[in-house]
């Protein structure tokens, strides 16, 4: 799966909007994930996951920042996320199914915040992009 020129342009443009609310979007994405898919909390026994927790906010920021890194190196996502890919494979070992859940919650957050921009085309491009990011992060699992 690779991104067309049009898709890349859409993704970069949408990132422009997302980046203006990056931290809030990251936090909201995780809140949605933990509420809709409570099993994902099993990866964070060491966190205070209450709404507004500092750890939740910090982690949300981290996640969205990584997405931003992928956007900025959209021609070489594997390169940009190499370190994170190893982290997930050898240390975190998050089951691959969870990347889909997180991606979905990010899309829900973006749709809620930028309804006019979240056209069917933008939706498709971002779904594909997050799918590629997820593949990169699980690439070294076995």
């Amino acid at each position, binding site marked *: 799966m690779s991104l067309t020129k049009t898709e890349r342009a859409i993704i970069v443009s949408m990132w422009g909007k997302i980046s203006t609310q990056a931290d809030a979007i990251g936090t*909201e994405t995780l*809140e*949605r994930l933990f*509420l*809709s*898919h409570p099993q994902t909390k099993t990866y964070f026994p060491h966190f205070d996951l209450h709404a507004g927790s500092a750890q939740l906010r910090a982690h949300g920021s981290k996640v969205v920042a990584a997405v931003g890194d992928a956007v900025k190196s959209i021609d070489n996502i594997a390169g940009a996320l190499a370190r994170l890919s190893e982290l997930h494979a050898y240390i975190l070992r998050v089951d691959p199914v969870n990347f889909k859940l997180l991606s*979905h*919650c990010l*899309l*829900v*957050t973006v*749709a*809620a*915040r930028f*309804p006019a921009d*979240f*056209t*069917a*085309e933008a*939706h*498709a491009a971002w*779904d594909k992009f997050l799918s590629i990011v997820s593949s990169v992060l699980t690439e070294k699992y076995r």
Partner: protein
Amino acid sequence: MVHFTAEEKAIITSLWGKVNVEEAGGEALGRLLVVYPWTQRFFDNFGNLSSASAIMGNPKVKAHGKKVLTSLGEAIKNMDDLKGTFAHLSELHCDRLHVDPENFKLLGNELVIVLAKYFGKEFTPQVQAAWQKMVAGVSIALAHKYH
């Protein structure tokens, strides 16, 4: 079997009351066909599905989307017995339509995204969680009679 609390039922019913079933149905089905193009395999006779705008504007897509969501509306009145409500449709989707149940999950998530788009801030994480349970319950019910 998915079990809904009184609060979840209230959240779902309340939001549903504000949904334009025709519009939302067309959006959700359209987005399914755009975002996951392989789902077009079930709709060979729908005419022009050659681009995102063709799909989103396609009258057959809108009509079918409305049909699907109207059915969901019926289910919302019977949240304690989704399997019973969808028994006949489940058989239909297996025996005649030959639809992989994975597609029910995909469409369910597309509907959640469309609701987020329409309702914005009102579609809080709590509201989403109730709706994720709803679409999961519907997917399970629609797959229940598969053999």
